[in-house]
Every structure is written in C-alpha cells, then in structure tokens.
C-alpha cells in the first residue's frame, strides 16, 4: 500500500515537472504591446453656394461647378504643346486700359492689376477657353502707373504667369479745366446742350460723347456727337421717350482732356422750340436757324433758366416781375416733376 502511494506520488511529481517546463516556455516570456490612438481631424470648406461664381474666392468650374459656367474648349491641340503668349498689347485711356494678347493654346485667364506689383486693385477672370484674349480694366486713375499680371491656365491645368506689365493711363485732365455752365434742355427738335468753354490759353476744343445707359467715362467711350469750339449743340439724333447721358470734355492743344462734365436729358414730345433756347452767351447754334451764329437780341432762356423781363415802368415792372417769377418757379417745378416721371420709365 505504502509502495503504491510513494510510486504514485513520484509520478505526480514528475508529471508536474513536465507541465511546469512546458508552460514556462509558452507563457512566461511574452511582454504585452503598448498602444495609443488619436484622432486626426480636418475641416474642408467648399464653394459657398450663394449663386454667384466668385473667382476671387477661388471658385471656378472645378471647385464650384454649380455656380460657375462650364468652360468651353474650342479646337484641339497636342498635349505636349506649351503655353506661351504673343502680341501682348496694352492700350491706355483716360481711366481705363485694354490688354489684348494671344496664347499658343486655348486658356482661361486671370488678370490682376494694381499700383504696385502686389496687384491689389482688382482682378478679372474669364470663363471661356480662348486663344485671343481681351481684358478691359476700368475705373483707373488718370496719369497713373499701373502693373498688371496675366495668369493663364489650359485644360490640362498647366499655367503660365506673365508680368508685371506696366502701363500708364493718359495724363491727368486736371491740367485743363472743364467747360462750365453745362446744361441739357429738351427742345422740340432734340436735346439742346449748352456750356461755356474754359478760359484756358491752350484750350483746343470741346468733345461731347453720349450713351443711352450710362455716362461715357472718358473721352473715348460712348458715341461721339460733337467736337468743336462752339458753346452749344443741338442733338437731333434722339428718340421720344429715351433718356440720354452726355459727357463733355475739354481738350488742350497738348492733347490732354479734362476730367469731364456729365449731364443728362430725356426727349419728349411738345418740348419748347429750339428757337426759345439760347446758349449761355446767347449765340444761336442751330444751323437751321436763320440767325445761326449771331447773338439773339431778346434771349428767352439763359443760363440758370432766369427769365429776362421786358422794360416797363417801375411799379408795373415790380408786379410784372413778381408774376413772372411765380410763373417761372411753377414752370420749373412742373418741368422738373415731368422729367423726373419720364426718367422713371
């Protein structure tokens, strides 16, 4: 009995030994891994969906297709053809500049400009791929040096930057005064413009331009209607019910223009005859008038619309003057009201 117990104990010890060795090998050595997790966050903003394509914010057909028109590529060209410009031409005006150039392949273009090469004054972006480019920059200051930069991108997103392109707007008109006493009156035959030429020794002539939607901004925009040294002009090329915007510029013999004077008038039926209107100095300027070029002896309307009464005795003259003054005031009031209503339509 004792023998069996001892024998059994020995085998148990031996078995325990084997298990200990096995488990020591399999379970005692490995260390546990160390771990750490983080979040990487990123905000992405896209076009602002305000219905307006705003290139200055980076919106274009790719970043904001719902707001920017699809550019159209005309023609085809090899992929390996490079972008280059030719015939870059800047035409300067009084307060605008037109930049034209050609690119070797169709491109979209962004033009930035400014008084320094930071080009901070403005930018324009085209939305159509083309080889012939024309950008008109308006609202410039006369007699000022500007710099422009042209950035073109083709359909393969290759881009070419060109600049700085310097250009100088036409000399300031400040050196020559504007015409004065400018006014526009509607008469039966058209719109009668009158003014007084500047008393400037190198004054050469007056240049008048007109538009039907806005004032011509410089001596080179709008329709030229008059050039000369007279001090009034009857514009017969008008239509009933339309409003006309006139700009008058004085030009010096050096070729400089004044900054311009702007006046507008609407043409209506039943306006007074042009014979009742004279220029501020009383010169008859209508070529159809038999007294063309002469001084009207009894001008009806002169500058500021004052009425000149006939000579009568002092008492009646005073009464007459009061009546006429009242009549003139009412006439001017209703005339202004009438043109205001007309201008609304």
């Amino acid at each position, binding site marked *: 009995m004792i023998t069996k117990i001892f024998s059994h104990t020995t085998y148990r010890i031996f078995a325990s030994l084997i298990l200990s*060795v096995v488990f020591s090998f399999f379970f005692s050595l490995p260390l546990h891994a160390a771990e750490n997790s983080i979040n990487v966050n990123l905000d992405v903003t896209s076009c602002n969906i305000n219905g307006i394509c705003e290139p200055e914010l980076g919106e274009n057909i790719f970043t904001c297709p719902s707001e920017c028109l699809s550019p159209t590529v005309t023609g085809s060209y090899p992929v390996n053809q490079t972008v280059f410009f030719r015939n870059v031409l800047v035409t300067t005006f009084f307060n605008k500049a037109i930049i034209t150039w050609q690119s070797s392949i169709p491109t979209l273009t962004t033009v930035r400009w400014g008084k320094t090469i930071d080009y901070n004054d403005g930018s324009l972006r085209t939305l159509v791929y083309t080889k012939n480019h024309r950008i008109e920059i308006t609202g410039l200051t006369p007699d000022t040096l500007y710099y422009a930069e042209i950035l073109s991108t083709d359909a393969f997103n290759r881009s070419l930057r060109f600049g700085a392109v310097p250009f100088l707007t036409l000399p300031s008109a400040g050196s020559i005064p504007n015409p004065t006493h400018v006014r526009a009156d509607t008469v039966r035959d058209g719109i009668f413009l009158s003014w007084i030429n500047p008393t400037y020794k190198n004054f050469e002539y007056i240049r008048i331009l007109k538009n039907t939607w806005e004032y011509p901004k410089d001596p080179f925009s709008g329709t030229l209607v008059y050039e000369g040294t007279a001090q009034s002009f009857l514009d017969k090329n008008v239509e009933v019910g339309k409003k006309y915007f006139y700009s008058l510029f004085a030009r010096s013999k050096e070729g400089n223009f004044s900054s311009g004077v702007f006046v507008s008038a609407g043409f209506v039926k039943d306006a007074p005859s042009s014979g009742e209107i004279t220029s501020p100095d009383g010169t008859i300027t209508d070529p159809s008038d038999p007294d063309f070029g002469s001084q009207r002896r009894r001008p009806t309307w002169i500058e500021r619309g004052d009425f000149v009464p006939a000579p009568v005795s002092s008492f009646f003259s005073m009464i007459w003057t009061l009546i006429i003054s009242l009549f003139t005031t009412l006439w001017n009031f209703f005339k202004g009201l009438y043109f205001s209503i007309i201008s609304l339509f």
Partner: protein
Amino acid sequence: MKKKNHKILFKNTIFPAIILLAVFTFSGKIFAQNMQSPSYRMQTDSLNVGGFESSSPLYGLKDTLGELATGDSNSNSYFMKAGFWQMQESYISVSSPPDLTLPNIGIVQASSEGTVSWTIMTDNPAGYTTSISASTVPAMKSPSDFFTDYAPSNTDPDYDFNIAPTNSAFGISIEGTEVISRWKNNGSLCNAGTLVTPGKCWDGLSTTPKTVSGSPVSNHPNGAETTVRFKAERGPNRIQDAGVYQAVITITAIPL
C-alpha cells in the same frame, strides 16, 4: 518478509525519488540557460516543480513552485529582486499625445499638414518595433466623402507627395531617431540612404499595421520619439465635399 518489503520499497520508490532529486538538483545547469535561434532569444527560463499564470476578471497571478533563494535584497549600491517572475519585469510604454487638428482645406488652400509625436520607451534588452494603422479604409473620411489613402508609385514610399489633379489623398511621412530604413532617403529615393528629411517619403495608411520605427536594444531611460507627419491634399480639379473629416490612428509598440 519484512526485509523483502524494504527491498521492494527501495526499488520502487526511494530509488526513483533519489534519481529525481538528483535531476532537480542539477536541472538549473541543464535547462536554465539562455537559448536563442537566429530569430528569437529566450531571455530567461525556469525549471521547477510547478507554476502557472492564472487570472480572474480582477486579479492575475503568476507563480512558480520550487524556486530557491527568491525575494528582495539590497545593499547601499544595488537592489536585487531574485526569482523567475521578477526577472520578467521589462516594460514598454507609448506616450499619449493629444488629437491632431489639421489646418482647414478650402477652395484656395489645397493641402494641409500636421505632425504628432509619440515617445516609445522600453528596457527590453531585445528592443521594440512600432507600427501605425488606421481604423478604416480609407483612413480620412467624412460622412459624405473621403481622401483616398496615399498610394506610392511602387512598394517604397514616394519621395514627394504627388497626386493626380482630379484626386485627393491622405498620407504619412515618418521622422525620428529610430525610424526604420523604409522611411529614410538618399536625397531623391526612399528606402535608401540614411537621411530622415521632414516632409519626404510618403505612404498611405491601412488597417494593416505598417512598421515605422524600432530598435534592436533597450532605449531606457530616455526613450525615442517617433514623429508622424500627416498630409491631406486636394487636387486642383478634385471636387471635395465640404465637411468634417476624421481619421482614427493607432500606434502600437511591441517589445521584441
């Protein structure tokens, strides 16, 4: 009869016990030595009569039965923890940096970069390796859109971050003193040279861990910093949905 029983007892019990005791006595010299292969090294082992790892939800127990001369002892200069389990007290640690918020990507701003650094420290004589993984494919996602995981042009990371104009991608570049050779460069190629250049050698993330750094020896007590540079980029012709994008990144340091 009694004499015969004593003989049987000696033959069947005492003699095997003596043999076993002899085996136990010399077993330390026979088994308790460091073993190694070309790939692995047995740091310590123990040959005793019992022992096991056991655990409950709250506690764990590691015991060995039969060890001699165990316990703590110390002098003015040294402190000794004697015993098999106490020798297993190597450690590895990974720091816990805050989440990373990359700069916004907008209509004009097309790319965004940021870095996160982890300090890995271990006294394991065989060193460690660190790997990185993402929780999803692709890693950087919003509810409506995603950045594709950056795909290098071949098996090695790309020296520069290059994507197609119509694509957007999210990738990583690794920096640090213990970066593995795959993330090093020679000035133009990755997995070549010894340079570790910030912003060079880009690869994408995956749910499968990618090894980024490591050491064949202990770096205790200073540890080593592994910096991961994250980059998201939208190609100029890529329409990327606006929104909040997020990637969950896990760094795992494994002792060797």
